[in-house]
């Protein structure tokens, strides 16, 4: 077998290992899903009436709770992606404290396999969590206009963005000196969707915050998903969403690999 084939089989082995971890201890997955679902219910049922009234959806100046639900679901989906990425930092950091990582280092294993296993595992976990959140959104009355192709494109954009954030989170998990730090540093990711077009239209934000919201990655991703699912205009946001995702993924992949190769597993003493 060639080097590439070994990299693939080793990565698949590591992926199986991470999926077994997830299935055996599903509490982390449920916690990651619980956070966006809680926000969805909170924003729709507590703030939704008021926020919906301020929305001008489809030229209709007076929105209601239902209109806000339609508006906020793409935002919630980016929260879901950010929240699921948090799990990667925790599981990577936890893994680094385990003796098994020391053993992996003494074996002839493709260098990237351990991290690839974590990242693909987290990506599948994210897809499962996204399905759960979309299910809840549909159950409480979210009615997207998307055809199957648009659905596929929307999921594709979310998965690509998730891939980028998961590599970022993996790097943060490797950079952290303890599991506690690793669970805190990526927290800013869950804040960013609130400073984007996810929950309120950017135009309503004060200057400064508005510029920030316009130029940060969550806005183009939200706008692209919103456009695909609920037929609003996408414009150049699709390019922005893909460019941000590919850029973050590439930089963080290289960063994470560098950290992994340099770092010794935390001394168990």
């Amino acid at each position, binding site marked *: *077998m060639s080097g590439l084939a*070994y990299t693939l*089989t*080793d990565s698949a*082995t590591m992926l*199986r*290992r991470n999926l*077994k*971890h997830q299935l*055996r*201890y599903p509490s982390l997955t449920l916690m990651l899903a619980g956070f966006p679902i809680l926000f969805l219910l909170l924003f729709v049922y507590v703030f939704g009436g008021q926020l919906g009234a301020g929305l001008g959806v489809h030229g209709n100046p007076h929105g209601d709770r239902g209109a806000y639900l339609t508006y906020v679901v793409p935002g919630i989906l980016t929260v879901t992606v950010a929240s699921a990425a948090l799990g990667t930092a925790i599981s990577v950091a936890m893994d680094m404290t*385990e*003796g*098994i990582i*020391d*053993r*992996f280092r*003494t*074996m*002839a*294993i493709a260098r990237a396999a351990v991290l690839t296993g974590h990242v693909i595992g987290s990506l599948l976990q994210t897809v499962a969590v996204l399905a759960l959140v979309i299910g809840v959104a549909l159950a409480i009355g979210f009615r997207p206009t998307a055809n199957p192709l648009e659905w596929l494109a929307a999921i594709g954009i979310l998965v690509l963005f998730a891939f980028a954030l998961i590599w970022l989170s993996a790097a943060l998990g490797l950079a952290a000196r303890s599991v506690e730090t690793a669970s805190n540093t990526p927290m800013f990711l869950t804040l960013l969707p609130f400073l984007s077009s996810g929950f309120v239209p950017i135009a309503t934000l004060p200057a400064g915050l508005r510029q920030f919201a316009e130029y940060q990655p969550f806005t183009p991703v939200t706008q692209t998903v919103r456009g695909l699912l609920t037929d609003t205009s996408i414009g150049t946001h699709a390019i922005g969403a893909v460019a941000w995702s590919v850029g973050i993924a590439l930089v963080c992949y290289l960063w994470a690999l560098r950290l992994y190769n340099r770092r010794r597993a935390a001394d*168990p003493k």
Partner: protein
Amino acid sequence: MVTEPDGVRAVIGVTGQFSAVDNLLTGAENLRLMADLRHLGRRAGPRRVTELLERFDLTDAADKPLSRYSGGMRRRLDLAMTLVGDPRLIFLDEPTTGLDPRSRRIVWQIIGELVADGVTIFLTTHYLDEADQLADRVAVLDRGRVVAAGTPAELKRRIRGGHIELHFADPRALREAVGLIGTVPPDHEQLALHVPGDGTVASLRRLLDQLHAAHIEVEHLSIHTPDLDDVFFAVTGHPTTEPAKPSQEALAQ
């Protein structure tokens, strides 16, 4: 080593002092993980796993999560995982530290079998009797330096040592024995006397004849040949383990 790191990694096995196992998986899953990473294949992999579970007496615990493993089972699994790839050179860092007697016996037996198969084992231990029993060559490390090296027999020959320990029923017999032999101060509390000897049968017989002729009753005696503990104390010059961890490296091949 520098030019072919993965070539080296493929033929060595390392078992560290702290168990390098995946605590979230079962014993069988841990072994299967190793088999997959060693690219043993779909048929050879599971067969090797079953074989190792049996050999390490872990078959009953194969499907239990590691949280329910004892320290000894964990260590055995650790060593089994090292053996999955059939390494030709194995590094074992204190493999029996803290093990129960049963696990220790299994580990010793397996090390013996591996050596018989031609595997080279590089073992570090604080138990000098372990080095004596398992190793062909022993290097004594003190504060990071090799202070003595050789076969256990060579090392033992290098030092004077060995004594016969006599125990007496009452202080009077002890006093008489001291008067007769009287080279070393007696242990009055234990009613014991250490008589230096070279460990030969002739010297033992001479000593007993002497005592018999003087009508001194010995309650019981024990013979101490120099062991690696004596060697260690002799070559390091200090009898207790000091902060710079003294350790014994043993090489069995």
